[in-house]
């Protein structure tokens, strides 16, 4: 399945060309390549499309933080969002599971589509959305509960497990998937906060995958961690994309180059370029992206 994606992507990539005014197009289901749509969605890969974003704009009060973002996020890939700080990449990430709802002054226009539903539609239950779009945060934020409870809490609330044995099994699987099981299996009932920073972050990842979402959003998941923990988590992302779609924000361009299949470059609230990572880092289409990647600013 991964191969198909990549293959299809190559085609997509060939037809696409990006330009600074990318994404200024009004929403259309079949964007035309010559008008500079970043990554065209292809009829052949429809089933692999996870999230489709069209003309997404966002305002904090009167300040526009995102303008006309268009992006297709493919299933079972890692997509990295890069750009200088304040460019809107985290804001964009939080649009995907409507975490921006928590801020009163935010207003949003445009389409974020998942599984045929407009995420921002009136009838969409944001809790149901977040159930399918999990999130890992910049700083590890385990609940003040035991390691076991941290993982088991949400699945239990979602009625995903009924028997104690099922619950134990689910916790073990999530912790194994997050690569934490061997380190914590003997102290499952110690508080989650007693772990080291890197372990806490993996606990948060285990907590997120325990509810079996489709998409996992990661907001600079390694920025508060040491290099060894960072490497562990990068490996983990690579493994997890077999089961989940991962969208990650990162400050660190090497990280994007290492883990991401696709990379989107944000600048001042606009998405300048969206491309296959290899393409982005070897031969970016836009001057701004090139300047950023080569370290002229940011």
């Amino acid at each position, binding site marked *: 399945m991964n191969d198909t994606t990549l293959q299809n992507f190559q085609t997509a990539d060939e037809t696409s060309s990006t330009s600074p005014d990318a994404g200024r197009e009004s929403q259309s289901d079949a964007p035309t390549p010559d008008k500079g749509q970043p990554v065209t969605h292809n009829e052949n890969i429809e089933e692999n499309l996870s999230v489709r974003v069209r003309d997404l704009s966002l305002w904090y009060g009167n300040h526009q933080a995102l303008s006309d973002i268009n992006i297709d996020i493919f299933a079972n890939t890692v997509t990295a969002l890069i750009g200088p700080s304040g460019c809107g990449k985290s804001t964009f990430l939080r649009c995907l*599971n409507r*975490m921006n709802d*928590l801020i*009163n002054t935010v207003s949003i226009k445009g389409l974020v589509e998942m599984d045929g539903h407009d995420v921002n539609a009136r009838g969409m239950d944001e*809790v*149901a*959305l*977040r*159930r*399918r779009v*999990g*999130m890992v*945060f910049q*700083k*590890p*934020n*385990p*609940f*003040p*509960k035991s390691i076991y409870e941290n993982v088991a*809490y*949400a699945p239990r*609330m*979602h009625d995903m497990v009924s028997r104690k044995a099922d619950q134990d099994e689910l916790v073990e699987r999530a912790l194994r998937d997050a690569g934490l099981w061997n380190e914590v299996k003997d102290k499952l009932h110690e508080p989650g*906060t007693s772990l080291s*920073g890197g372990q806490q972050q993996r606990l*948060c990842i285990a*907590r*997120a995958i325990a*509810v079996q*979402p489709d998409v996992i*959003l990661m907001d600079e998941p390694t920025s*508060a961690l040491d290099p060894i923990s960072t490497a562990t988590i990068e490996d983990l992302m690579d493994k997890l994309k077999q089961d989940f779609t991962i969208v990650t924000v990162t400050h660190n361009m090497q990280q994007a180059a290492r883990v991401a299949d696709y990379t989107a470059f944000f600048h001042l609230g606009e998405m300048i370029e969206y491309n296959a990572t290899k393409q982005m880092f070897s031969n970016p289409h836009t001057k701004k992206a090139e300047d950023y990647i080569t370290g002229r600013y940011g």
Partner: protein
Amino acid sequence: MSTNIVFLLFCAVLVGLGGVAFVLSRAKASRVRASGTLMHAQPDQYGWFAVLTTAGPALLVSALGAFALLLLGAEIPVLYLLAAGLIIAALGLVLGLKQVRPDFHARRAIESVIRKLLAAAATISILTTLGILISIVGEAISFFQLHSFWDFVTGTTWNPGASFLSAAGRGDEGGSAAQFGSVPLFAGTFMITLIAMLVAIPFGLGAAIYMVEFAPLTVRKAAKPVLEVLAGIPTVVYGVFAALTVAPLVVDIAGLFGLDASYSNALAPGLVMGIMIIPFISSLSDDVINSVPSSLREGALALGITKGEMVRNVVVPAAAPGIISASLLAVSRALGETMIVVMAAGMRPNLTANPLEDMTTVTVSIVAALTGDQEFGSAQTLSAFALGLVLFIVTLTLNIVSVIMIRRFREKYRVNNL
């Protein structure tokens, strides 16, 4: 001459001397400086230093003298004392003037005096605590010399009135001797505190949760001052409310259910005390809930948890040490609350579990013991101090436990935030 005029005269002379000291020293310092010598301080500072040397020792001596005169009963004529004070002031003036030398650090000298003054002020709070302890413990010990400590702690009859008769040498005529068994008082206090907490904790905590987690900003802004007003109402006013409005209401309502309630039932003061404590709990819990890191809330919401579940399972448990700490402080307030119970609760020590009956509390008994026409040394007045001692120890313990809990809460989240 009356003492008042002598005193005023003394003050006037002292102020005058101070003024002279300031002017002379400053003039001298200015002269020295004008002559081209570098000095360690400004002329004004030399002036102020001279004022300090003039007035400081003189005031100290007069204060000590007055203390000896009033308290130790020393026979020092007031005039001599004041004269001595003025002589010392004059000597101080001379000394201050002498110190106007280029190599003298007048500023440093002033600042060290100021620093000492500030430190002295800070010790007053310690003296206050010591004062409370000494006054209460001292009288309580005298009480326990008259009556057994064991009877005080375990006795179930509180009947101090009879001590009045025995003090008058008619102890036998009163029938029974005075009894100081404090159990019914503490039972009454406990009952009223319990009722108050049953009102205050759910309402206070609920209001705090709503304000932090659910309320729109406008509601929050409007509700805070309302709760502040509720917190600023004097307790005597709550007492009137309890006695005149709530107590009859409780009797009427109990009557509807065929129950017989006393007009000084424990329910009315308990309920009103609960209302009084609502803003106390809500404002403390509000602070605590607000300081639960928002990353925990986001972490829960991102898992597809509803807001209510997040509050109940994540926010409240995280804030629990702080909430418990607030509740302990509230209990301590309820235990020590006086006016509401004095006005609305009964005077009769009554060991019962029925909140519709009248019962009395520790604070009521303290007030009752100290407002009668009793001699200060009588067993009844001393019993007030024994009760006060217990109250002090209990509230102090509650406060200390609550401080420890809140400190743990703070440390936990400082660490957790990495």
